[in-house]
């Protein structure tokens, strides 16, 4: 045990004392809010500075009577089509909208003349404006007055309340859960890959620098492997913790900065309304932010943090041992590639399952299986955490994960102890199997 601790310390210090670690640890949390801040700033500036798009309208039908909006200014032209076109060419207006005489049932022949290709967004905006207008006209045709019309439009906002067995009611917001599940799942995926690779590279380095023979004359290969895996895990956890703290500090500072400036904030809200789908916009009626924040407060934060840390470590240990075995088997990084894909495959499957099954329907049977099987559960179950999976499933999944990493560690250790002393041998799966069966 004492020796595992020594190796753990050495591996940890080696990495933490590197300049690259320091730079990555400090820069990443600054870069992300900076990028978001800059993007937000540019967007706000653009919205503020945006002038209304001027569209000339030649309406031969006389029915449309388009009213100018925040974003579009409509100028009615009373000349014939050819004259209007020549006039438009000499103006600096965005477009000329030509509306011929048409029947309400078949509005054909509406044409937009522009100098440059209009963006999809502008086309859609204009189409929906026209559609809305025709819609109104049709209603009028059927003698439905505007008041009746207004009373027909209802905004429905489903308040979702989870009823747990204890009878406590929790407010939940599926959209917020989706985002949380998405972020947690991706974090685990990235962490396992990045630090798993670190283990592999560390083992290859020890092997190629030939130091390993000296080390294993002092410690057992298993101790060396475990000390290395745990040491790198500690590096990852420390880095992650620092990131979380720095990101929350910098983003709250950034939010404060934006919050102080009222017009900008309004613009931001406007932006969020425009960006989201109509359904989402409907869900975020009077004060969407407070509602989402309330949802997050309702979540059992402690349980999510604990379970996230559990899968974070469990997934890492499960895959880390396999990466260590690959590092021990090969002589160079290039050689390792043939073994990397089969190891990463279940992780990638878990990653896709997160999008395809878990987030759209966290309680389906596919979601259940992905979050139970140890190789996919770190990504899959973490995606479900926010949706409050049944306790028994959580416990089953965690027990299997512990079993899973004990199994992979055992398997990896058997390959590792032989592999680290082998140089220049051509390694394939048959050779690995032979090493696995070999006696001490």
């Amino acid at each position, binding site marked *: 045990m004492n*020796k595992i601790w*020594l*190796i753990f310390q*050495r591996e940890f210090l*080696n990495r933490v004392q590197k300049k690259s670690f320091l730079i990555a640890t400090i820069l990443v949390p600054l870069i992300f809010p900076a990028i978001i801040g800059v993007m937000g700033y540019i967007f706000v500036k653009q919205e503020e500075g945006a002038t209304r798009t001027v569209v000339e309208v030649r309406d031969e039908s006389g029915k449309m009577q388009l009213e100018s909006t925040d974003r579009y200014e409509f100028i009615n032209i009373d000349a014939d089509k050819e004259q209007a076109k020549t006039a438009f060419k000499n103006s600096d207006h965005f477009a000329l909208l030509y509306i011929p005489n048409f029947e309400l049932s078949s509005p054909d022949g509406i044409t937009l003349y522009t100098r440059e290709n209009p963006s999809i967004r502008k086309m859609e905006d204009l189409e929906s404006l026209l559609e809305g207008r025709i819609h109104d006209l049709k209603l009028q045709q059927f003698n439905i007055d505007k008041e009746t019309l207004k009373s027909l439009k209802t905004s429905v906002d489903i308040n979702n309340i989870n009823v747990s067995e204890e009878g406590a009611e929790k407010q939940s917001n599926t959209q917020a859960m989706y985002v949380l599940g998405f972020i947690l799942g991706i974090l685990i995926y990235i962490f396992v890959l990045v630090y798993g690779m670190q283990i592999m590279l560390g083992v290859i*380095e*020890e092997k190629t*620098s*030939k*130091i*390993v*023979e*000296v*080390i*294993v*004359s*002092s*410690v057992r290969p298993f101790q060396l492997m475990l000390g290395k895996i745990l040491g790198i895990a500690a590096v990852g956890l420390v880095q992650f913790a620092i990131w979380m703290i720095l990101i929350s500090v910098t983003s709250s500072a950034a939010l404060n900065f934006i919050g102080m400036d009222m017009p900008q904030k309004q613009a931001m809200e406007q932006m969020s309304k425009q960006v989201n789908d109509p359904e989402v916009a409907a869900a975020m009626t009077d004060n969407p932010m407070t509602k989402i924040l309330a949802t997050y407060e309702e979540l059992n934060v402690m349980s999510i943090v604990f379970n996230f840390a559990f899968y974070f470590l469990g997934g890492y240990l499960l895959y880390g041992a396999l990466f260590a075995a690959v590092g021990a088997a090969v002589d160079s990084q290039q050689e390792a590639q043939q073994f990397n894909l089969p190891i990463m495959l279940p992780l990638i499957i878990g990653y896709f399952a997160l999008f395809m099954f878990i987030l759209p329907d966290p309680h389906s049977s596919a979601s259940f299986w992905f979050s139970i099987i140890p190789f996919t559960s770190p990504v899959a179950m973490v995606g479900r955490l926010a949706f409050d999976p049944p306790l028994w499933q959580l416990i089953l999944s965690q027990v299997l994960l512990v079993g899973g990493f004990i199994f992979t560690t055992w398997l990896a250790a058997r390959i590792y102890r032989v592999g680290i*002393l082998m*140089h220049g041998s051509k390694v394939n799966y048959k050779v690995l199997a*032979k090493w696995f069966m*070999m*006696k*001490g």
Partner: protein
Amino acid sequence: MEALLAKGVTKRYTSHTALDRVDLTIPEKSIYGLLGPNGAGKTTLIRIINQIINADEGDIRIFGEPLNQKHIGTIGYLPEERGLYKKLKVGEQLIYLAQLKGLSRTEAIEKSKYWIKKFDLAEWWGKKVEDLSKGMAQKVQFISTVMHEPRLIILDEPFSGFDPVNAQLITEEILELKQKGCTIIFSTHRMETVEDLCDHIALIDKSKKILEGSKKQVKEEYRNNTFVVDHKGSFNFLNGHYELISQKPSEDDYFRSLVRITDERSPNQLIRDLTEITEVHSFVEKIPTMSEIFIRLVTGENQKVFANYSPAKS
């Protein structure tokens, strides 16, 4: 008490047997040469002693005790394939390796400082190993082998990679360690090393030990009444008591002959007989060098070795 006693040590791999019932007796405070051609099983044996791998059969005792985890600190091992952590500083490296051998941190710091001064590397303490020259890195590696004061030191080809000056330094260090009571096992191909330093030797070939004993004993065993004679004027033996193995002319009318007594006659009788037929200038017994014994045993080509005799030790 023996520093190491091995009985019937056997290691089998799926395709071949690496060690086949090897017995070794390594006396305490000796320098013991473990010889053998490449692939004979020396590295396997050394790895078993270092508990890097386990023997399938057999029994190993270190200073009377069965080999166990405790002996990690008792043994110092310098593998043939040298290696250190390239990115780690010299000082930290030595402290780490000593701690792995079981020293406390304070002891490890103290010992590594002592040794680094002794080898004139003090100014390199804070430098990374990758900045060191190959010779310096070798010295650091040697320090890491002996700094925890092991009673049994195993050196696999210790002089490879050293220039003559550093090789001399290491030789002196080895002799000093022997004086302090350490037992040293050499695994080597270099016969001059064996000739100069070893008291005892064992020869391993094709997984089996084929020879073991003190250097003196071994040489005694392999001398075979052969004498080197420098003489003026050639001769040819007519009687059946002697065998003329070779006769080579040197300058003028001088010759050097290799003569073996084939029966019970004494060397004195040979000299007497020789003086009658030629002018003897020198007469010396040909004691086989370790190199000759080695080649003879490994290849089995007895005649060839003696035919190519040259008196100066290579």
